[in-house]
C-alpha cells in the first residue's frame, strides 16, 4: 500500500508538467517524417523497394531502438530535474527509506517509458500505414508481427526509461544526465563495436531490433535479458549512489 501510494505520487509528478507532452510532440514529428518518407521517399534507383515486402515494412515500423533512446532521455530528465529543482527533498521527506523512494521513481518512469514506447510504435505503425496509402503497396505486416513490434517498443521504452533514470540519479544534473545517456546509448556502443566486433550483437540498437523481430543477431530471450541488464545496471548504480549521498 505504502509503495503503491509512493508510485502514484511519482506518476503524478511525471504527468503534472509539460515534459511528457514535449516527448509526445517528438513522437508526432517522427511519425510525420516516417509517413512522408514512406509516401514520397525512394531507393537510390528511384524505386520503392524499401516498402515492397512485409519485412521491409516491419523494419520501418520497428520503433524499439528509437523508443529506448527517447525513453532513456525522458527517464534521465525526469529524475535529474528532481535534484536540480530540489523536489527530491520532498521525495525523501515523504519516503525516508530511500531504496523505496528510488524504486517508486523507477516504477513510475518504467510505466511512462512503456507508454512512450507503445505510443511511439503506434504512431510509427500508423504513419507507415498512412504513407502506404499514397503508394502502390498495401499494408503487408501480419497481426502477429505488428504485435511484436508494439510489444518490443513498449519493453524497450520501459527499459530505456529505467536506464535513463539510473543515470539521472547518478549525475543529478539535467544537462549532465542527458549527455550521459547519449554517450552511453549512442557514442559508446559504436566505439565498443570498433574495439570488439562481437559486441555488435549486444548493443542497444541491435537488441531492440532483435526483440522487434527485424534482426536475429541473438536469440529473443537473450536480447530481452540483455536489454534488462542495460537498464538495471545504471539503475542499480543510481540506487546505491542515492542511498549513500546526502541531500545538500
Amino acid at each position: 500500500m505504502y509503495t503503491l501510494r509512493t508510485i502514484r505520487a511519482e506518476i503524478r509528478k511525471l504527468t503534472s508538467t509539460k515534459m511528457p507532452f514535449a516527448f509526445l510532440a517528438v513522437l508526432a514529428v517522427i511519425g510525420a517524417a516516417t509517413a512522408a518518407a514512406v509516401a514520397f521517399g525512394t531507393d537510390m534507383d528511384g524505386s520503392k523497394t524499401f516498402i515492397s515486402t512485409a519485412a521491409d515494412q516491419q523494419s520501418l515500423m520497428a520503433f524499439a531502438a528509437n523508443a529506448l533512446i527517447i525513453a532513456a532521455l525522458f527517464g534521465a530528465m525526469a529524475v535529474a530535474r528532481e535534484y536540480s529543482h530540489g523536489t527530491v527533498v520532498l521525495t525523501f521527506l515523504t519516503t525516508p527509506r530511500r531504496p523505496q523512494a528510488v524504486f517508486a521513481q523507477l516504477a513510475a518512469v518504467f510505466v511512462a517509458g512503456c507508454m512512450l514506447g507503445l505510443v511511439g510504435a503506434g504512431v510509427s505503425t500508423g504513419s507507415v500505414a498512412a504513407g502506404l496509402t499514397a503508394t502502390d503497396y498495401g499494408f503487408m505486416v501480419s497481426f502477429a508481427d505488428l504485435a511484436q513490434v508494439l510489444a518490443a517498443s513498449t519493453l524497450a521504452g520501459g527499459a530505456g526509461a529505467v536506464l535513463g533514470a539510473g543515470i539521472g540519479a547518478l549525475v543529478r544534473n539535467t544537462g549532465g544526465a542527458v549527455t550521459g545517456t547519449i554517450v552511453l546509448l549512442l557514442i559508446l556502443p559504436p566505439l565498443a563495436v570498433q574495439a570488439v566486433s562481437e559486441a555488435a550483437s549486444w548493443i542497444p540498437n541491435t537488441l531492440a531490433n532483435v526483440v522487434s523481430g527485424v534482426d536475429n543477431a541473438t536469440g529473443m530471450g537473450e536480447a530481452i535479458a540483455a536489454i534488462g541488464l542495460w537498464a538495471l545496471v545504471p539503475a542499480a548504480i543510481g540506487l546505491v549512489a542515492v542511498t549513500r549521498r546526502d541531500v545538500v
Partner: protein
Amino acid sequence: MQQLSDQKTRTAPRSYPITIEHVTKSYGGGAAVVDDLSFVVKPGRVTGFLGPNGAGKSTTMKILLGLASPTAGRATIDGMAYGELADPTGTVGASVEADAFHPGRSGRNHLRIVADATDTPLERVDEVLELVELSAAANRRAGAYSLGMKQRLGLATALLCDPPVLVLDEPGNGLDPQGIRTLRNLLRSRAAAGNTVFVSSHLLGEVEQLADDVVVINQGRLVTQGSLDELRQSASLVRAASPEALQVTLEAAGGVVESGQPDTLVVRGLSLDEIGEQAFRAGIALHELSRHNDSLEDRFFAWTGDTAGGTPQSNTKE
C-alpha cells in the same frame, strides 16, 4: 494567511521534543560544518534557531530530517530518527528549501503529489491553500510565484498532514509584514496547542517576533540557548552622577560593566538590588536604575563576538 490558526490544530497532542545530541558533520574530512552540537527543542514553544549565514543551521535541520547523515551524534524526534518514525510526514511537517518546486508544476499539483505520497485526502490540499492564502494562485506555475508565495507554498506543504512538529528553515524570507505577522500567529497557535515548532532564521528581527526560545549557533557550535526573554533581560541600565567611579565600584563587586552614553552604564552579573546597595555604600547618586532589555541584535553580537563569517540582518526582509 488570513486565518490565524489552522482549524485542524490538535488540542491535546502528544509531546514530540526534538533532541540534538553531540551532532557533528564534516564533509570529506574537512572542518566541521556542525561541531558537537547539542540542544533540545521543547514542545509547546516556538524555538528560533539563530545563526549567521553558514553557521550550520540548514545542515542541522537536514540531519534532523534524515536528508544528511551526521558524522557523529544523533538527532531525534521523540527519541527516534526521522526515518524511524512510524508516520514521518504525519509527525513532522518540514520546509527546508524555499524554492524546492518544479517551476512548471502548479502549486496545487505540488501539494497533490505530497497528498498522494502521504495518503492524505485531496480535500486537505484546498484547505491548506486557503490557510496560506494561495487559493487564487493555486493553478499557476510555481515558477511564476514570488519568493513570498513560495514560502507560503512551503508552509502549506509542511502543514498538509497536520503534524505535531514543524521544522521550518527561514520561513519568513520574502514574506511581507502582514505575512510575517500571520506566520507568527500561526506558529504561536500551533505551539500553544502543544506542538513543537522549530524555526531557523538569520533574520534577528524575525526571530525576535516569532520565538519563545532561541538556540544560537555560530560556526557549527552552540553559543547559547534559552528563553528569549531571559536572555534579553540579563542586564541593568544605570545612570549616575559619577559613572566612572560607579563602574570601578561595580566591577570590584563582580559586575561586568559596559559604558554606553556619557552618564550611562549597562551592568551584567549584578541584580538591581546589588547595584543600588553598591552605589549607596560608595555614596554615588543614581539618576536611573532599571532592567535593560537588550535587542536581540546586541545580544547576538555579544554571543558571537562578531566573529561570524556572515553578518546577520537585524531587519526582517520585506
